[in-house]
C-alpha cells in the first residue's frame, strides 16, 4: 500500500488507528471460516461516521477497493480483503446512540456487539431478537451485511425483519438515508435491498433496529428421538398444527456426543439419534396451552423422553449444549468448517441421510446442529487444515453437501452469506440473467465496484447487462 495513502488515512483517523505491519495485519487475514485466508493491504479504524465518509471518499478518489469488517466472526470469507484493498474496521464505532422504549426502537453504530444491545435494553423489558451463535462477539453492522439469523428467528424473522432505517455511506463517499423509524419506506424498499448485501452496497454507519418485548412466559422442551426421521416428523407436525415456536432446533448424535464430552455438558442423552429443542413464548396461558399440544405431538412422533423447563436457570441448562455446540466441537479437531445450507423442511430426513453418506465417503467427522424449523442446516466438519489431503476432502464434502441441498430445491446459504466461500455455487441456483441483475443492482449503489470486490456474484457467470445509464435521477 503506498505511503501517500497511508499518510492520508492517518490524517483522517490518527496514526494509531492505521495498521499496516505484517504482524498487525495477520489478525485480519481470516474470519470465522478457517478455509480462507487473505491479508489486507492496510487496516483503518474510524471512530465516527464522518471519518468513514472521509476514508471512503478518499478511496473512491484514488480508486482503491475497500472491505468493511465488524468483529470478523463471519463464516463465508465475506470480510476478507486482498493486499490491494483497505480493510475498514468498524469495531470502534460501538455506541448505542438512542433507545426509545415507547416505540421499541434503538439507534446504534455498526460496531455495537449484538448481545450488548440486548443487555443494554434488558432493564426496559426489551431485547433485540436476531441471536446468531456468535452474538457475544458479532456486531450489528456485520449482522446487517449478512442478514444474520439465529435460533430465535423461526418465529420472529431474521435481521432484515428487525431493521427499519439505515444511514449509509455509499462507495463514492456520499450519504444515503434509507427507510424510516416507522418501518414504512420513503420509496422502494432499499433497506430490504441493503440488508444482506454483504458490504457491497456501502457501509451502514447508523442502524435503527426494532426491539421486542421480553415475552411474559417462555417454555423450553427438550425431546430425544431414536431416529432423525422421527425428530424431523415432529418438527413438521408442530408447524402443521399451526404452532410457530420461538425456536425449533435439532442436534444429531455426533453433536450431542461432542457437547457431552465437553465442559458444556448439558445432560443430553448420548444414545439418542437426535435431540430436539422446542421453545414456546408469549403470554402465560397461551404458552401453557401450546406446550400441551407440543408435548402430545412429540410423544406421538416417538420421543423417548421430554424434559421441560420454564424458569430461566432451567431453560439455560437445556440451551447450554445448543448454544455452546460450536465451542464443544472445537475439542474434536483444531479447525471447524461450519457449513450453512437450507432445504425444504419436508426433506430433512432424506438430506440427513445424504450428509451421512458424504461423511462416510470422505471419511470425515461431521456434527449436525441446525435450525430444523426452517430447514437451515449446519453440517460442521471437524478437521486439521495443516493436512492438505484432509483439507481437500473437506472442500469436496462441502461441495457435495451443497449440491445435495440444491438438488432438492434448497439454497446454498440461510444465514452466513456467500462471501467468497460460495461464489462457485451461485450459478447452481441462479441463472446468468439473474446473476447479471444482481451485478447491475450492485452497480446502482457502487458504479466503480470498489466495495468488497469479488464477493457474492461470480462475475464470469453473469450475462452482460447494458451499463447502467441513469436517465431518471
Amino acid at each position, binding site marked *: 500500500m503506498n505511503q501517500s495513502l497511508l499518510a492520508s488515512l492517518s490524517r483522517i483517523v490518527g496514526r494509531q488507528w492505521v495498521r499496516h505491519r505484517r504482524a498487525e495485519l495477520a489478525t485480519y487475514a481470516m474470519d470465522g471460516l478457517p478455509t480462507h485466508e487473505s491479508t489486507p493491504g492496510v487496516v483503518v479504524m474510524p471512530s465516527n461516521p464522518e471519518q468513514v465518509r472521509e476514508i471512503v471518499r478518499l478511496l473512491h478518489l484514488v480508486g482503491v477497493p475497500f472491505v468493511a469488517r465488524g468483529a470478523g466472526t463471519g463464516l463465508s470469507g465475506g470480510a476478507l480483503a486482498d493486499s490491494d484493498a483497505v480493510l475498514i474496521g468498524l469495531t470502534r464505532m460501538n455506541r448505542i446512540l438512542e433507545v426509545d422504549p415507547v416505540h421499541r426502537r434503538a439507534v446504534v453504530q455498526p460496531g455495537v456487539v449484538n448481545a450488548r444491545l440486548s443487555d443494554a435494553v434488558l432493564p426496559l423489558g426489551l431485547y433485540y431478537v436476531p441471536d446468531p451463535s456468535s452474538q457475544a462477539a458479532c456486531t450489528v453492522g456485520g449482522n446487517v451485511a449478512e442478514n444474520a439469523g439465529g435460533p430465535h428467528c423461526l418465529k420472529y424473522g431474521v435481521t432484515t425483519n428487525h431493521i427499519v432505517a439505515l444511514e449509509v455511506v455509499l462507495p463514492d463517499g456520499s450519504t444515503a438515508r434509507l427507510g424510516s423509524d416507522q418501518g414504512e419506506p420513503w420509496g422502494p424498499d432499499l433497506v430490504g435491498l441493503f440488508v444482506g*448485501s454483504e458490504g457491497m452496497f456501502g457501509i451502514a454507519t447508523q442502524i435503527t433496529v426494532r426491539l421486542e418485548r421480553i415475552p411474559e412466559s417462555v417454555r423450553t422442551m427438550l425431546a430425544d428421538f431414536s431416529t432423525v426421521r422421527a425428530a424431523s416428523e415432529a418438527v413438521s407436525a408442530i408447524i402443521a398444527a399451526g404452532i410457530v415456536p420461538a425456536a425449533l432446533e435439532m442436534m444429531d448424535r455426533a453433536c450431542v456426543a461432542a457437547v457431552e464430552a465437553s465442559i458444556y455438558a448439558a445432560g443430553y442423552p448420548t444414545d439418542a439419534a437426535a435431540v430436539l429443542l422446542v421453545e414456546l413464548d408469549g403470554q402465560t396461558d397461551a404458552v401453557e396451552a401450546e406446550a400441551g399440544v407440543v408435548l402430545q405431538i412429540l410423544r406421538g412422533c416417538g420421543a423417548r423422553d421430554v424434559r421441560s423447563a420454564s424458569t430461566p436457570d432451567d431453560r439455560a441448562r437445556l440451551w447450554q449444549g445448543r448454544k455452546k455446540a460450536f465451542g464443544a466441537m472445537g475439542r474434536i479437531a483444531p479447525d471447524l468448517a461450519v457449513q450453512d445450507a437450507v432445504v425444504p423442511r419436508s426433506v430433512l430426513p432424506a438430506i440427513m441421510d445424504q450428509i451421512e453418506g458424504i461423511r462416510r465417503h470422505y471419511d470425515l467427522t461431521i456434527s449436525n446442529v441446525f435450525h430444523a424449523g426452517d430447514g437451515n442446516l449446519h453440517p460442521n466438519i471437524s478437521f486439521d487444515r495443516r493436512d492438505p489431503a484432509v483439507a481437500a476432502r473437506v472442500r469436496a464434502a462441502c461441495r457435495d453437501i451443497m449440491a445435495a441441498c440444491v438438488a432438492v430445491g434448497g439454497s446454498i446459504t440461510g444465514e452466513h452469506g456467500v462471501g467468497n466461500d460460495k461464489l462457485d455455487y451461485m450459478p447452481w441456483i441462479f441463472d446468468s440473467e439473474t446473476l447479471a441483475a444482481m451485478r447491475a443492482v450492485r452497480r446502482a449503489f457502487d*458504479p466503480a465496484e470498489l466495495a468488497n470486490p469479488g464477493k457474492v456474484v461470480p462475475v464470469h457467470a453473469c450475462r452482460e447487462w447494458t451499463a447502467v445509464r441513469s436517465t431518471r435521477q
Partner: protein
Amino acid sequence: MSDVIFGRLRALLGTTGVERDSQGLPRAAPDSPDALSLVCRLAHEEGWKIRVEGRATWLPSDAPADLVVSTRGMEEVVSVSPADLVATVQAGAPLEVLRRRLADNGMWLALDPPGRPERSIGSVVATATAGPLRHGFGPVRDHVLGCSVATGDGRLVNAGGRVVKNVAGYDLTKLQVGGFGGFGIIAEVHLRLRALPRADVTLLARGARDALTSGARDVVAADLLPATLELLSPALAAEPDWVLATRFVGTETAVQADVRRLSSSADLSWQQLPADRTAAFWSTVARGTLGGPVTLRLGVLSDGLDEAIDLLAHDLDEGLVSAGAGQGMIRWTGDAPLERLRGLRRAAASREIPMTLERAPWVIRRALGHFGAYREGVGKIVGRLRGTFDPGQCLNVALEGADNG
C-alpha cells in the same frame, strides 16, 4: 399505430393472448413468464410504452401507453407444498382462488389486502398493500420468498427462492415488493404460508377514536399478540362509531386464552363477532377501501396515530380510514383534488411521515408519484435501478411523479 401493435402482439402470442381493452388499446395477456418476457422485449425494441395491469381491480387502467400488458393470463397456482408451507403462484392468480386452494390443503396466506377478492396476487405484491393482518404477521415483504420478474427490456430475473430462509445473493425480491411495477412486471411469486388456523376469532370495541387508540395501547402493553389491532373509521366499518377490531388466530386453546386476557387488558367493551359473520366483516373492510378514487398510506409511529388521523381529517376528510393501532400504518381512501393531496404530502413530510400513494387516477399519480420526494442519497440510486430494470423507460409507472422531477 395501435393496429400495428395489435398485429405484432398477435403474431407473438396468438389470438387468444391479445385483445383490445375498453379504450381500444391493445392488451397483451401472456400466459407464461417467458411469453411476458417476449412482450416486454418487443415493446422495448419498438419503444412502446407499457401500462402494467393485473386484473384491473386496484389501480385505475388509465396510464397513457401504447399497449397494456396484463398478468391476467398467468393465473395458475403452480405448486403448493403443505409439508413446507410454501406455494408458487403466477402473478395474475386471483386472491380468492389462491385462498380456496390453500384452504383445501390446510394452508393460509396471512395477508388480507384491501380491494376485491379477485384482486391478483401480483398486484398485492407490487403495491405492498398489506391489510390489518400486518399487525400479527408483518408487511407483504415478509410473505414473499422470491419472485420472477420480466424487466422493461424483456429479461427474466428469478429472485430469491422457495425455501423459508435464504441469503444467497442480493435480496432482489425486496425491490419488487412495493416497487409498483417500476422495476419490472412480476410474473410469479413464491409465498410463505402458515397452517390454516384452527381458531379464528374477531372481537370489536366501539366508541370514540381516542378511547380506542388508548385501549389499543393497553392491549399492546399487555403483551397480547392479536393478528389484527385495527382502528376503523365509522364510514369504513359501516357503524355509527369508530371500531377497534382485534382478531386472534391459532390453536383453539391459545386463542381462548388470548380472548380471556383481552377482556381484562383494556378499559373497552369487547363484543365477539359470531363465527359466521367474521369473514363477511373483514371482506367489507377490504372492499370498503375501494369506496373512493384515491387510497394512500401513511407510516406513523403508534403514538402518532391520533395526530396523523387529525391531519388527514383536516387536510382531506375523515374518509375511509383503516389504521394499524399497534404498528402505526394508516390507510385512507376518499376523493380529494390534487392540490389537497399535494398539501397533505408536504404536511406529512414536515412531520417525518412517509406518504405512499397506493391508488389514484393517472393525473394524480403522474403529478405526485407513488412515493414523492426521496430522502438524502436515495434518488440517484432509484434512478440507476430504474435505468437497470427498464433501460428504455417502457414501463409507464409514476414512482416519483412530476412534482419530484
